[in-house]
């Protein structure tokens, strides 16, 4: 048994089963030297031009780049950067149709060349001696080199093999008809290719290097042989093999079989056999990257076919529009004929002529009708088995076809569908003109889809189980806590708040005799009063709002002094009414637990409003906070709190609970919010007037729609809470209910505005929106005031909504108060 090396040294060649000899037609394009295309008017460089994931963008539109500047950087081994093919300006970064059979869009960079073609500073090398493998690896990766043979596998990944490489195979077979890019490259740049191979030898230190060239390229073979003699490479180590012309000998697996007689086992890589294969074009690119510090920004493209005009090979910048490239060669693509990227066997029909040249573009085939006559309609398979005879992978194409066509993908998979290399020989020989490869591709895509969705389902199941376990654990923890809490009642978390509320209630009873009249009407009356208060505040706010867009408003409310006076008035009127509102914290805890389930929208709104209030509260200022603290610490409305309205105290107490969360939010934004809310900073309000209206309208519309949906669902008719609020929201024009609906809407709107403010911290619009929406809501309450009736049944839900609004008002009031103190 000879070893692989001995066999390689003997020059023994094997063959692979099957294969075909299609008309080569390479002389169309391989007779003339490689020409260089001029700079295109614009380049569009897709971020992903290889098999893998795109890199991370590192340029911005408008930025100037030099030739060779990286546009992306590789953030994973599977990503490969792309580079600016010339100097110029980044015009746009957007998805466009890329060079892919699907015609789908992918993100890319548009570069307008400045015509200077100015290189970035380069660091050339004359030798790789003394360079670390890691360093070379980095250079090759950063140069964006992907396999140029067609598969565009990242070269750097291949060059970090897990095994020792005993045989480095260089693929110069170029078996596909028509294409002559590698042929011309070998003829004209044999020395550079060998330098690239030298880099690979330096990195991998293989025992043998075999350069395989099909025997239909004698000139290329001669050129490489000559260059090898002239080079200082070890001729014992580097061998050149002329292999018989047969399609698809250029396929990696088949070429390995030809050169070594070995098959790459299923699921393994050539490197597992100690072999590694690179294309000659890749070797050239590696030479350019390592010695000349030139990243992969151009490649040889064969433009051929009988309609190609000046058929030949062209150095083409990656990203050149194919339309422009074809114009340069004088090509005249025919309608209703495919325009093929790649060769006639494995290339794909371009769906869009505006797609760019990419790293995989080895050929553009512009066929005439005679050379590529229209494929007849597929007919029934006659089981002739010719496809199985020519399949280099020894598959059963017709069985695969039956299963693929019948969508029995699992059966196709069992017949090793995924070993198909899509070389197309089966369809080439098919007497029934069945597009076999297309069927296989569809089946493969479906199978891939199935396996990803199966993996996803598995993952979802795991996550679902994990979540269930977590919820269960949380529930148990809660139960334990509540048991402990029962055991020690003083430890209840809301004790402080509850105490504060109790105090406030006592106060309220003293301060407002009205609150005692009619228990059932109490909440409605409280609302009524709050409306009144709100009305006053709105009037004030509006007057205090000098909006340049709004002349009357500006005229009325220009003076801060007047606003302050009004404010004082409003405060005075509001204060006695406040206590009744404060009776509501008592039902609130229960509603938030039971009612929120029934009416999430309202509950959410309340939650939002509370949060917002908390934020305001938290960021009010030092004086405020000291007051709060004193209130809280005393566990009651303490002496300092006594000077405030009880509402303020209640708000403070609530806010305390929320404060820790609230502090995370941007303080400056909060501060401006506060200011806007008081109407004390009129200069801030004018900007967002129109905007806020829109925002409020949107919010109301959303809430309405939501609630409409909620009503559509069968809910217990007796659930007056929900009904009440839903109805309110729906009948916006109904002035009698307008207040409640407005309160809900306002709460949502405020919450949203606050959210906006919180996310975009310094966004100036946020404060005005917040203020505005509050004001808007109050306007609405205001007009319905007179017709307000005592609707007992809907009391709790309504009250809750009100409360939310009111509490923020309370905050405002407090601020007013504070301002006055200032």
């Amino acid at each position, binding site marked *: 048994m000879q070893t692989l090396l001995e066999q390689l040294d003997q020059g023994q060649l094997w063959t692979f089963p099957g294969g075909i000899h299609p008309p080569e037609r390479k002389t169309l394009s391989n007779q003339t030297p490689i020409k260089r295309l001029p700079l295109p008017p614009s380049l569009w460089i897709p971020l992903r031009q290889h098999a893998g994931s795109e890199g991370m963008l590192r340029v911005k539109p408008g930025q100037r780049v030099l030739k060779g500047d990286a546009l992306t950087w590789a953030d994973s081994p599977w990503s490969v950067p792309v580079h600016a093919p010339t100097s110029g300006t980044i015009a746009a970064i957007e998805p466009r149709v890329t060079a892919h059979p699907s015609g789908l869009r992918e993100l890319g960079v548009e570069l307008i060349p400045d015509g200077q073609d100015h290189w970035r500073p380069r660091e050339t090398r004359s030798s790789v001696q003394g360079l670390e493998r890691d360093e070379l690896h980095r250079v090759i990766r950063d140069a964006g080199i992907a396999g140029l043979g067609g598969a565009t596998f990242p070269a750097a990944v291949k060059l970090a093999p897990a095994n020792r490489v005993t045989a480095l195979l260089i693929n110069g077979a170029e078996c596909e008809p028509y294409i002559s890019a590698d042929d011309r490259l070998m003829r004209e740049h044999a020395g550079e290719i060998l330098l690239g191979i030298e880099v690979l030898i330096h990195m991998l230190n293989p025992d043998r290097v075999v350069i395989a060239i099909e025997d239909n390229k004698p000139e290329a073979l001669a050129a490489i042989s000559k260059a090898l003699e002239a080079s200082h490479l070890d001729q014992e180590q580097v061998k050149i093999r002329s292999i018989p012309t047969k399609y698809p000998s250029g396929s990696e697996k088949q070429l390995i079989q030809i050169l070594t007689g070995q098959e790459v086992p299923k699921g393994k890589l050539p490197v597992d056999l100690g072999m590694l294969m690179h294309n000659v074009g890749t070797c050239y690119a590696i030479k350019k990257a390592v010695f000349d510090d030139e990243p992969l920004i151009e490649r040889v493209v064969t433009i051929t076919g009988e309609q190609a005009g000046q058929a030949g090979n062209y150095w083409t910048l990656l990203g050149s529009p194919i339309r422009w490239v074809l114009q340069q060669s004088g090509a005249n693509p025919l309608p209703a004929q495919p325009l093929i990227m790649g060769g006639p066997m494995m290339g794909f029909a371009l769906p869009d002529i505006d797609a760019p040249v990419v790293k995989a573009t080895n050929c553009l085939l512009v066929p005439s009708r005679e050379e590529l006559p229209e494929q007849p309609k597929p007919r029934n398979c006659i089981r002739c088995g010719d496809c199985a005879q020519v399949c280099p992978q020894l598959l059963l194409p017709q069985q695969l076809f039956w299963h693929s066509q019948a969508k029995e993908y699992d059966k196709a998979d069992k017949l090793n569908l995924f070993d198909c290399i899509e070389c197309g020989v089966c369809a080439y020989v098919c007497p029934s003109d069945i597009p076999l490869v297309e069927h296989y591709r569809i089946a*493969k895509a479906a199978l891939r889809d199935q396996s990803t969705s199966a993996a996803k389902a598995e993952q979802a199941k795991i996550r*679902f189980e994990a979540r269930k376990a977590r919820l269960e654990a949380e529930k148990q923890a809660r139960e334990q806590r509540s048991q402990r809490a029962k055991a020690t009642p003083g430890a209840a978390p809301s004790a402080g708040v509850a105490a504060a509320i109790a105090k406030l209630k006592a106060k309220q009873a003293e301060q407002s005799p009205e609150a005692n009249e009619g228990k059932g009407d109490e909440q409605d009356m409280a609302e009524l009063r709050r409306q009144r208060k709100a009305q006053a505040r709105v009037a004030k706010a509006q007057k205090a709002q000098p909006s340049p867009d709004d002349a009357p408003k500006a005229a009325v409310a220009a003076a801060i002094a007047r606003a302050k006076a009004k404010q004082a008035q409003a405060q005075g009127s509001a204060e006695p009414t406040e206590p009744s509102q404060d009776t509501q914290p008592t039902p609130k805890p229960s509603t938030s637990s039971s009612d929120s389930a029934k009416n999430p929208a309202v509950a959410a709104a309340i939650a939002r409003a509370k*949060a917002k209030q908390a934020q305001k509260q938290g960021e009010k200022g030092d004086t405020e906070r000291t007051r709060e603290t004193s209130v809280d610490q005393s566990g009651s409305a303490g002496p300092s709190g006594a000077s405030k309205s009880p509402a303020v105290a209640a708000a403070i107490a609530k806010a305390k609970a929320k404060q820790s969360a609230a502090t995370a939010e941007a303080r400056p934004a909060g501060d401006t919010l506060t200011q806007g809310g008081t109407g004390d900073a009129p200069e801030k309000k004018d900007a967002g007037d129109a905007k806020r209206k829109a925002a409020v309208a949107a919010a109301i519309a*959303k809430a309405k729609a939501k609630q409409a949906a909620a009503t559509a669902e069968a809910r217990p008719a007796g659930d007056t809470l929900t009904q009440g609020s839903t109805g309110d929201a729906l009948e916006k024009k109904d002035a009698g209910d307008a207040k409640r609906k407005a309160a809900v809407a306002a709460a949502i709107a405020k919450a949203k505005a606050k959210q906006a403010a919180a*996310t975009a911290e310094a966004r100036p619009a946020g404060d005005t929106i917040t203020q505005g929406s509050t004001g808007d809501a109050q306007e609405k309450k205001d007009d319905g005031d007179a017709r307000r009736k005592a609707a007992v049944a809907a009391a709790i839900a309504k009250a809750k909504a009100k409360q939310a609004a009111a509490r923020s008002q309370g905050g405002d009031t407090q601020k007013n108060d504070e301002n006055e103190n200032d």
Partner: protein
Amino acid sequence: MSSVVVAVGLLALLALVFGVVLGFAAIRFKVEGDPMVEQIEQALPQTQCGQCGYPGCRPYAEAIAKGEAPINRCPPGGEATVAKLADMLGVEPEPLDADAADSQPKVAFIIEEDCIGCTKCIQACPVDAILGTGKQMHTVIADLCTGCDLCVEPCPVDCIEMRPVAMTPKNWHWDLKQIPVKQV
């Protein structure tokens, strides 16, 4: 007369013998658990969406195994799942219960400008695929989203919508006939 007695006696004896054999077999070859449930669950898409009326895929699988639930209650799985279940259970495939007009895979998408940070969707998500916390904008981790649309309903401001999974060159289905013919 005696022949009748003999016949009856023999039959009784036979019944006894076979009864013992059956009883022994039932104990000896007892199947632990219900492998059917596992198999059915494997066939379900694991969206945990509850659209079948059961809280999750596993309970639905159990119900199917017990014969309590029809096999056509899984809209995310679509006709393919019904067919698979029918094949597995040896029953006729039934048309899908829900109107599965488009069985296109979808993922939830949160319109971030509208999100108010209420966390309701987070609580609704059966697979913890929504990221966010109170008062902070939420977002869907699209790779983990099963497209069950359970988060859409709870959103108070309707800022969640189900969007079809975008077709990219990577997950393209080689549907050459779907490519719009571009007039050049």
